[in-house]
């Protein structure tokens, strides 16, 4: 979970629009917060802010889309990477989550030394979630392979037995 201390560590000077977004978020009015993001002039900043609002409203696929748009536009704040990783993990896009985790670690290095440890702890938490999902996805893939191989082999053996039985029953065989 991102704490206020972590957010403060990003030392972003709030614009009026950003403050409006935050005020709406504090009230739990996500629709108003989304509307307020329209006041953010910079496209990339707006995408990043929308990603944050959408993530908090738990619209994870939309949050991921906005976070990626912001990142592709050059946004490199730890917050947008963090939101992107968490949303990607929720959606199940582990490749994207893993890529963003690498970029989050680079972004942490750029932060003030005092803020780095908190963000490192947060990144470690995100990695645990990601690994957990990756483990389950791998488990599903292995199980599917196992099921296909078993069904194939046992099915073939059964059909072989059937063929053998037919051959033995044939007159003259």
């Amino acid at each position, binding site marked *: 979970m991102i704490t206020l201390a972590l957010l403060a560590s990003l030392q972003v000077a709030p614009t009026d629009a950003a403050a409006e977004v935050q005020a709406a978020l504090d009230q*739990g009015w996500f629709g108003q917060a989304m509307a307020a993001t329209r006041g953010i002039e910079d496209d990339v900043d707006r995408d990043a802010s929308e990603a944050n609002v959408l993530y908090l409203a738990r619209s994870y696929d939309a949050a991921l889309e906005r976070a990626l748009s912001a990142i592709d536009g050059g946004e490199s704040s730890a917050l947008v990477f963090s939101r992107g990783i968490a949303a990607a993990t929720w959606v199940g896009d582990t490749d994207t989550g893993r890529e963003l985790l690498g970029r989050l670690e680079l972004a942490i290095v750029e932060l003030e030394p005092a803020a780095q440890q908190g963000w490192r702890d947060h990144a470690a938490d995100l990695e645990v979630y990601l690994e957990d999902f990756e483990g*389950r996805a791998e488990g599903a893939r292995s*199980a599917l392979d196992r099921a296909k191989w078993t069904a194939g082999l046992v099915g073939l053996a059964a059909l072989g037995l*059937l063929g053998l*039985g037919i051959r033995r029953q044939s007159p003259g065989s």
Partner: protein
Amino acid sequence: MTSPTPAQTEPGSKATLLLVTAALSGAAVMCIELSAVRLLAPWFGTSLPVWSNVIAVVLLGLSIGYLFGGRASRGKDPAKSLAIVLGLAAVATAWLPFLAGPLAELFLPAQLDIEQASSVFRWGSLASSLCLFLPASTILGCVGPLVVELLGRSGLGAGEAGGRALFASTLGSLVGVFGTSHWAVPELGLRGTLLLAAGALVLALVSISVVRASLGKPQVGLLLVALLGAVLTPASRALPYGLTQLATVESPYQRVRVVEALDQGVRFLAVNESTNSYQSVWQPELGLLDGDYYYNDFALPPAWVAREQGPLSTWSTLCIGMGAGTAKRVLEGSLPAGTDLAFTGVELDPEVVRLGALHMDLEQGPDDLLASDLDGRAALRCLSGPFDQVIVDAYANQVELPAHLVTLEFFQEVRERLAPGGWCQVNVGGADTRDPLVRAVAGTLARAMQSPVLLLRVPGTRNLMLTARRDARPPVPTEDAWYLLPPELQRVVRGREVRGQWDWLEADAPFEGLLTDDHAPVEALQQRSVEHSLARRNRTR
């Protein structure tokens, strides 16, 4: 048929014992086949593909068994072969409940989410069916030819021997079908049912021993192995840490259990599943549930109507797929002050209602009608309404929408029973508002209601609530009416107004997959829904 070796001739009474053997093995085959799907249900559900896999495997086994049974009947002592076959069949049957869990978990590990699990259902159920049921059905397939051979050697002609054996085994199968589904599974549970089938085969083995006038060491050994399987089989599966089980029953439809989360005091009624889904939720207080539950959405329509029209004296709700009454308790505790609830609930599974009354405070009030053992569609035809709200929350086999409860004709019947301006809410599982299954059901609902449908995601879950009104429009998050709710209900709508959390489908909007009674490919749509979910994953950037 090959010419029998001239050997012993069985007396008439022994022929009767042979026919009893054929009948018992016929009953055992059907018992295994019907129990097989239920045995796999906790992991793979009981969908049509699972049924098809099980039936195909049993038929494959029987066909192999017929061939090898015919081969074995050429031997010098077919009675001995039959005794061994029956002993092996008893072993293979008695061990099924013990082996089912470990084998199924090999193909469907625990802790997968629903999309991950769904991708494994078809192959996993096929592999499990082949490993579990092919041996038993193959061995049982050998019984028929051996019985026919022994009857033939007792002096009957080939046709008469075959006819009598088929008569007895088919009659046994008939008893097996009714006995398994109507009595054994509900009364004895799956473990008990399969042990009963194994016991029937042991009885047949004893009959054959009478024919042979001996019970050889191999048969005694097999009986002991069968007994070991019976002893080792656990009565039920272990629960995840933090849950305690309050009740579990095998109903005529599914395995039902009530569990309680130790740290929260919340109870869940779950069916079959190993995929973290539930059919009903209970918390001690009436009203909105703590957390992200779709049931809370059922409280929105009366609140919106009260804000629009002023105080309501009564609110009548029909809930198709009542479960253990969660919707009722949510509504009872959240209706506007002074409004009485007249609740009509329909639930197919009577055990769910019974457990709801025992563990989840499901009570029938003076204005309520709680009906169980009734299909939702059939019940709807018996109800005239008008209802202020019709909730469709019917699921089969954990995650599957019953096809006949999402068709155009069904929703038209719902519309006829709604009061003017009445609300229809349908709970559908899906990845998002673009999910093919969700779009098909929403589009069908819109056509039937002749009004737009609101598609609303339930945050943090895989549920979407489809909402439509008769001759009216539900509020949408861009309108002020959306927010006109009492403070306690504000939390239900907050966060759902942002992009991706909702969508809107007009009555005449084009969509793919109108569902009708004639053509409702719900299972194919569910497969596409899973593929849609998986396609969102690992998108190439």
